């Protein structure tokens, strides 16, 4: 029993790390634009596909080890990040910027986001079919160590460590760099930020790129972990990640990380108690409960406000 609890906990942390990475993208865009970028789940999906194709291109057909493994991992993750970031950038330019220019109401932006989401899904469905595509196994799945009898495997460590490191990098960048200050200033008061010489358009692009980079990394890690790709693979992780962002306090970077890990834990624990088929229902319920009783999330809203 105890052993099962810890196994579920580790599984939860692994999925939670992926949620966290995607949630960071929602949170960044929301913090700056007050827009729920509904199509962010498709940015993630593009990362999954990019990882798969990079593996094909690199001729991965069996497990790799040592330097070859390291090099391949870096290449796969980097390619996914670039692909997702590019997609995010294009999306901002074509779909969102015209609305922003016009000062369109939020409803319009949200509808656009949904349109983009479906367009991208169907584009991938048309091109790559509607069935699951399998990944080749890149990483030998072996137990590295045990905690309270629960097995901790290589791919779990990769996902958790990768996600936490990237989240910390983002946090440092936003907190410490000049561009990061520009992002925070725009999030807090765009008009005054412009008066300080911040090019808002560029900050918005940067925000989408950063969100895309992390979603791409999440996609690659997801692909390596679950070894599956499909046009609608972003849907559920996307909504869960949004839930995670709200749980931690949307617009709050550390909140997204904590919210992601926490949601991963909660839904895995909940799934164990209620039965695996209710996992998604449980996650949605968490979302509704959080929104009703603590809509600002655990750490509060607003980009950069939690640090300072």
């Amino acid at each position: 029993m105890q052993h099962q609890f810890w196994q579920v906990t580790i599984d939860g942390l692994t999925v939670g790390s992926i949620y966290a990475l995607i949630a960071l993208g929602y949170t960044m865009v929301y913090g700056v634009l007050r827009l729920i970028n509904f199509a962010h789940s498709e940015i993630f999906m593009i990362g999954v596909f990019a990882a798969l194709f990079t593996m094909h291109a690199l001729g991965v057909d069996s497990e790799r080890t040592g330097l070859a493994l390291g090099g391949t991992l870096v290449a796969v993750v980097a390619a996914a990040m670039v692909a997702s970031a590019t997609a995010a950038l294009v999306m901002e330019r074509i779909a969102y910027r015209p609305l922003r220019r016009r000062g369109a109401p939020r409803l319009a932006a949200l509808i656009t986001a949904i349109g983009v989401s479906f367009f991208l899904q169907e584009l991938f469905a048309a091109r790559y079919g509607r069935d699951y595509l399998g990944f080749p196994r890149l990483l030998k799945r072996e137990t590295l160590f045990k905690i309270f009898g629960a097995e901790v495997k290589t791919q779990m460590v990769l996902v958790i460590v990768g996600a936490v490191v990237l989240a910390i990098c983002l946090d440092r960048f936003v907190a410490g760099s000049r561009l990061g200050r520009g992002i925070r200033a725009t999030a807090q008061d765009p008009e005054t930020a412009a008066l300080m010489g911040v090019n808002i358009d560029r900050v918005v692009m940067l925000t989408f790129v950063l969100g895309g980079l992390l979603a791409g990394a999440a996609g690659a890690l997801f692909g390596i972990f679950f070894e599956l790709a499909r046009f609608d693979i972003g849907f559920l992780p996307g909504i869960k990640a949004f839930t995670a962002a709200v749980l931690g306090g949307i617009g709050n970077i550390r909140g997204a990380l904590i919210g992601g890990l926490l949601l991963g834990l909660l839904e895995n624990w909940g799934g164990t108690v209620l039965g695996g088929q209710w996992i998604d229902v449980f996650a949605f319920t968490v979302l509704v409960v959080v929104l009703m009783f603590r809509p600002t999330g655990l750490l509060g809203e607003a980009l950069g406000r939690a640090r300072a």
Partner: protein
Amino acid sequence: MSLAARAAAARRVGVIDPVSRWWVRQHRLLRWAVAAVGLLVVLGWPLLLSRYSQTILFFPVAVYVLLALGLNVVVGSAGLLDLGYVAFFAVGAYTTASLTTSHHWATWATLPVAVLVALVAGVVLGAPTLRLRGDYLAIVTLGFGEIVRIVAQNTDSLGGPRGINNIPHPASVGGVDFELLPLPYYYLALVALGVTLFVVTRLRDARVGRSWAAVREDEDAAEAMGVHTFTMKLWAFAIGASVGGLAGWLYASKVTFINPDTFPFTFSVIILAAVVLGGMGSRAGVIAGAFAIAALPEYLRDAAAGQWITDRLNWITGGQARTITEYRVLLFGAALVAMMVFRPQGLIPSRQRAAELVDAGPTAGLATGGTPDEARVEDAVEELSEALATRADDADPVTDAALPVAATAGDRVLELREVTMAFGGVVAMSEVSLTVERGQIFGIIGPNGAGKTTIFNCVTGVFRPTSGSVVLNGRDITGQKPHRITEAGIARTFQNIRLFPNMSALGNVLVGTDARHRTSVPGALLGLPRHRREERTGRAEAERLLEYVGIGAHRHDVARNLSYGDQRRLEIARAIATGPSILLLDEPAAGMNPTEKRGLIDLIRQIRDSGLTVVLIEHDMGLVMSVCDRVAVLDFGQKIAEGPPAEIQQDERVIAAYLGVADDAS
């Protein structure tokens, strides 16, 4: 009816789409002719079609149109983005299927139950979530849609993933058999559509519809005008859900089998696309949009043009689709984006929704620094004095007593007892006590940031005071919701003008008069006498009030296009319309030139003479001193002086605080 009268009738509706406008303006014979031809086409044309086409006409076409009309109540009228609308369709269908197969109900008997269960589902979903911000609501509804699907999938009594088969058809009625043939169902769907259209039209032109428009435009201002925003949103949700349930019943009884995959998220988005494409809030648009989205792919499937498009898309995407139906959702997704970017109001827009969606821009704060057109101001002033003169002369309906002043008891209308308002550590107002007596014009002055507007916000329920109490006519109203306080008899205007910018002047005032009305959805639907009476008197009174404040000539102008001074007047009219015992004016003279200010002074006195008590926040000392009976001075959230103007003018502390020059005597 003359053309002009008909045009006026069209405008009176306030919110109107171009198709309806055209419609109302045509000669009666022509309208009859068009209606007859239309009905003939809708009823007769399907008889000439192949059975396959007839099937298409029922599903997807009629069902889509029905669902789109239902979703339009939620998205178009109330401005709430519902991404899980298909859930209500599913609830209706599953209710029908379960009751007929497991409990052997007659299919007809399940109809009201299906609608009712969907309605309840709408309320159950709406009650906890409708207080959320709009974009959160969207995600929660999406989650709800998925929950319904997953529950169906995992519940054995609902057939699990296999769903429910062999749902019985409805029994024949009057010789019409409902079996496999599609046509009877098509006519049944037409009846459902007719009922739905009747409902949405009735509600649109009633208190409920105006409330929805107000909530959509400015929820806080709506609340301040006495609109029960939450209840009204819940109604929208419930009505939308019932229509969904109705469509679900139709679908289940015709198709006879359903399973969880009948109700994917995509379905919700397709219906949303229909609403957006046609034009949110426009009935004609939504019907056309749903028709296009349902019929076009079917039509194009076998057409050469469809094949051509499919080939091009295959070439672009590298796909191997055989027919255009496989690209349906892709095209709808692209259409959603394209519509929002290039034509957010839809193909056949509703006028008001178009104005809201096309250029919100920096005008959202409508009034910041706006200014009036001199000539029109002169006109307005002249008109006003004329109106006042006439009023004195004859017993015109516009008499002073005609102001809807709430009954008051006692001399103290409003009392603040040691009210403190702190935000975190910042104390915006500290132990402020005020007593406003009946028939007074009470001024509150003080430098910018002294906490004047905070007083109004505490009194009207926007903020809940940290401590202390607010008493209206002897009743403690501390911490009540804004709409309750409005009903209790406090009306206000806003410092930065918060009209419903895309509604007509008349529409704005009607929302105010509605604060005193009781008719809700059932009353409006049934056309109960009270509803008709309220509509009649409300309209008459709104028109009178517009005359009263001097902008009767602009009653059909959209609020945002009024001059600055007229907007201020309109805001006052809207506030008075709620039937208050006390009127709070927040910097009514801001942005006015001297001529307008003089007009305003006359108006405020006039209002007082009609029996209303007035509290005034102002910067303009001249105005305050000449119009107020009593003045309180605020500085740093504290009341530093109170008394008649003459006394206040001599008060050293006031001079120091307000003019800010005491320690710099020159």
